[in-house]
């Protein structure tokens, strides 16, 4: 299989952790993500979710699309691309950001790691190399796709620091949320640990080379035995991310480069990302369109959190005003085990997201032993995130 021409025999790549994840995947439950085969559930989805909120969980993050952006003009270049101010991102820090086409429609969202003054890593859901390269014209910057060169694990849960400490990374205690640092790893080398994650809980992401992936996995699992560490699949992670109110490209919104129907693309103002737009930093992609949208108030949609009556999850449901007029749809939903609320992310037509959100109803087709029952249940717009844990922010991390 070293012949690069033979990928047709196995189109999906396996992650550097595959030897471990495949051994533990008792359900043999796999799904494609970013060109890799990834675990949807290892053995027991509810227990995997429980590990995220009560113990320590490990998610294989390697399939994330990653670009290295380096060079004298890297910061200026990224400031030109991103809606958020990159100048304000300090070395050794990470931030969540988004980027738009010229029409102010979201191309993707992701995390930007500033490893050095002129050295960045961009992690995201979709692939953007042509766009990144075309945008680089005129900048002294080199952009390369490095997805396969980095292995990454997301260690999340209240005990995640305890696991790190037991694994010899006790200095990670000093990391504030969205900070990162390199740590000594075994006999040589340095994994980068960032205090980041997609769960809304205390958590870290560990980045290393594929060659040392298994070693890192083994260190964590050995250290985490007493903390209930367990590998989790995408399904459990998805539960936690909805509670945390995080959005996923091409699940909660269609990225502009994938939208076949031109009107499907969404602006960051419509996706609740206005807080990150820095109109004052100078020109950036989509600025003119976004400024016009903001000043003229022409946003058509709004992503909101919903609190829905009852306990039947409202996935794929339509939302009505006055039980009659269709005014939106659910993009993600679950009955939240942590908050015991029936929550959802919803794409609402304005002004039903706010000014006229008093009479909203969700139409749910509830399957009860193969018979569908149509429910029309009340929904309230509610702030995101649905959970807001102090332990996510505490420095040093709380001791669990």
């Amino acid at each position, binding site marked *: 299989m070293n*012949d*690069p*021409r*033979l*990928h*047709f025999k196995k*189109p*999906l*790549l396996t992650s550097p952790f595959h030897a471990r994840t495949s051994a533990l995947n008792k359900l043999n439950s796999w799904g*494609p993500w970013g*060109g890799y085969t990834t675990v949807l559930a290892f053995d027991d989805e509810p227990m995997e979710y429980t590990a995220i909120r009560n113990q320590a969980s490990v998610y294989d993050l390697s399939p994330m699309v990653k670009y290295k952006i380096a060079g004298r003009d890297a910061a200026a270049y990224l400031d030109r691309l991103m809606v958020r101010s990159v100048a304000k991102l300090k070395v050794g820090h990470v931030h969540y950001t988004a980027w738009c086409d010229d*029409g102010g429609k979201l191309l993707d969202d992701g995390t930007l790691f500033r490893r050095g003054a002129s050295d960045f890593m961009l992690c995201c859901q*979709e*692939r*953007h*190399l*042509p766009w990144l*390269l075309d945008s680089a014209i005129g900048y002294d910057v080199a952009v390369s*796709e490095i997805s396969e060169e980095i292995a990454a694990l997301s260690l999340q849960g209240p005990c995640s620091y305890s696991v790190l400490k037991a694994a010899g990374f006790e200095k990670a205690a000093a990391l504030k949320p969205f900070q990162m640092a390199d740590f000594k790893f075994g006999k040589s080398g340095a994994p980068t640990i960032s205090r980041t994650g997609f769960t809304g809980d205390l958590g870290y992401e560990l980045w290393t080379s594929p060659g040392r992936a298994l070693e890192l996995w083994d260190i964590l699992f050995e250290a985490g035995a007493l903390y209930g560490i367990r590998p989790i699949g995408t399904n459990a992670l998805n539960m936690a991310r909805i509670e945390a109110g995080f959005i996923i490209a091409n699940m909660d919104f269609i990225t502009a*480069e*994938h*939208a*076949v129907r*031109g*009107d499907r693309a969404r602006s960051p103002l419509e996706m609740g990302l206005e807080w990150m737009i820095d109109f004052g930093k100078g020109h950036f992609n989509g600025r003119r369109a976004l400024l016009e949208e903001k000043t003229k108030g022409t946003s058509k949609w709004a992503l909101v959190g919903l609190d829905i009556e009852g306990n039947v999850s409202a996935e794929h449901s339509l939302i009505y005003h006055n039980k009659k007029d269709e005014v939106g749809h659910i993009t993600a939903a679950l009955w939240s085990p942590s908050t015991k609320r029936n929550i959802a992310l919803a794409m609402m037509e304005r002004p039903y997201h706010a000014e006229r959100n008093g009479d909203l109803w969700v139409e749910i087709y509830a399957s009860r032993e193969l018979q569908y029952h149509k429910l029309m249940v009340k929904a309230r717009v509610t702030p995101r995130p649905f959970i807001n844990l102090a332990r996510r922010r505490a420095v040093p991390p709380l001791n669990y």
Partner: protein
Amino acid sequence: MTAYDAIIIGAGHNGLVTACYLAKSGLKVVVVEKNDWIGGAAVSRSLYPGFTYSNCSYVSSLLRPEIMRDLELPKYGLQILPYEGGAVLQQDGGYLAMYRDHDANRREFARHSKRDAEAYDRYSRDILRHCRFIRPMLMRTPPDPTSFRPRDLNELMYIGKKFFGMTETERYEMVRFWTMSISDYLDEYFEHPVIKAYLAVSAIIGTALGPMSPGSAYVLLHHYMGDVDGNIGAWGFARGGMGSITQAMSKSLAASGGEIRAGKGVDRVLVKNGRAVGVVLDGGDEIHGKLVVSNMDVKRTFLKTVEEKELPAAFVKQVRNFKIRGSSGKVNIALDGVPKFKALPKDSPCYRGDLHFTDSIERMEKAYDDWKAGRWSRDPFQDTMIPTLIDPTMTPPGKHFMSCFVQYAPPKINGGEWTDKDRDEFGKTVINQIASYAPGFKDLILHMEVRTPRELEREVGLTEGNIFQGELTFDQLLFNRPVPGASQYRSPIKDLWMCGSSTHPGGGVMGAPGRNAAAEILRDLKKPLPMSDAYAVL
């Protein structure tokens, strides 16, 4: 002598589709075919013992699912076997493959260009946008923009609404796309020559344009908007050869009470007092009918089978000017085994797909330069496949049929007719090209049929050997196809209709012209339409 309600000239796929619909509506229908066999360009013949060829058309995707449903073609035996991907073999010994699997395809592109690998999604998205605009028009009679009839106005509004339903960027992009060359269009997305070469092929197949000619981008769409059993964009082989499509149609026709008379062509259409009243067959027999529908191309119909004095001079002039320049040939080969292509891994699925040997757009354009100079391409491009790797019914065990579509081949050689010697030399050019990528290839050849535009015209009846019954350039599409003022399947002669690929929406084994023509005829006769609505594009 029996009088028919409708006489259809030519048992090609469109003629049969029209005949089936008219027969289903209760009309007494006869199809007249000049050859001893039926099928037109969707034909399978056995020219070497034990082997069946797809002699002309060789793959299916565009055949409308609504037609397959209405005529119950699956019930009458039609099976389409989708094939997966293909490859361009490069001169340097490498290759670029295309796979249906998205990830395999991205990784294959990435072997050549990481950038292009990540550009393909946006390219596919844009092509899909164009398809979504054009596809619903395939099964609608084009509106005449000069007419004030309610139906024309409605149809114009329909197109207008679709156009203005798009975002501004989409509108700009669409108009550019319709008029661009495929070379310029691909340059906007891709950097690697071999990737562009693979993707350009669909834009020039069957068209007397080069990849650098404006207007070639649209032709690409024509090849992208089909599907096989719902697999959008897929192409497939008809089990038993492309003739299986027309065989299934003929069974459907028989079940509806229609007749086929093969073996004698139509010498001329009988016109009395400005109305078509029947046809005179070669040899002098007459068949009478209330209306005549021609599946022949527009030139053959009006310049060879209708007396010029029956037609308005302006119309005749337009028909003379209709562009139907032959651009391709076909080589069908019976093989003693599977050829081994040096570049391909031995179990590559590309063997079961389309193989090309032209690894840059520049080489394709040079091949077109030969066409312009009145000779076949010395370094032609091919769309070559071995359908028997997934359909063993066409050959004896262990043997194979190879279908080579070859471009460019001009309708005339240096202004003169093709000779048998020219034809054989053309065949040699093709074989030599394949052999340079597959050593030992020549030893596998048991029999071959070489078809130049001369054979395509003589046997299939396609004027100048143009496989689309007229080029798919923007000046000959929609309400201008085949000629302005005659886009609605009617002709200047009352009761003489057109149903072939010269009419909207054009060539390919699609059946849409045949169905649209039947719908117009039945509307005129105030008969019920025995057809399901075209599937909505949602």
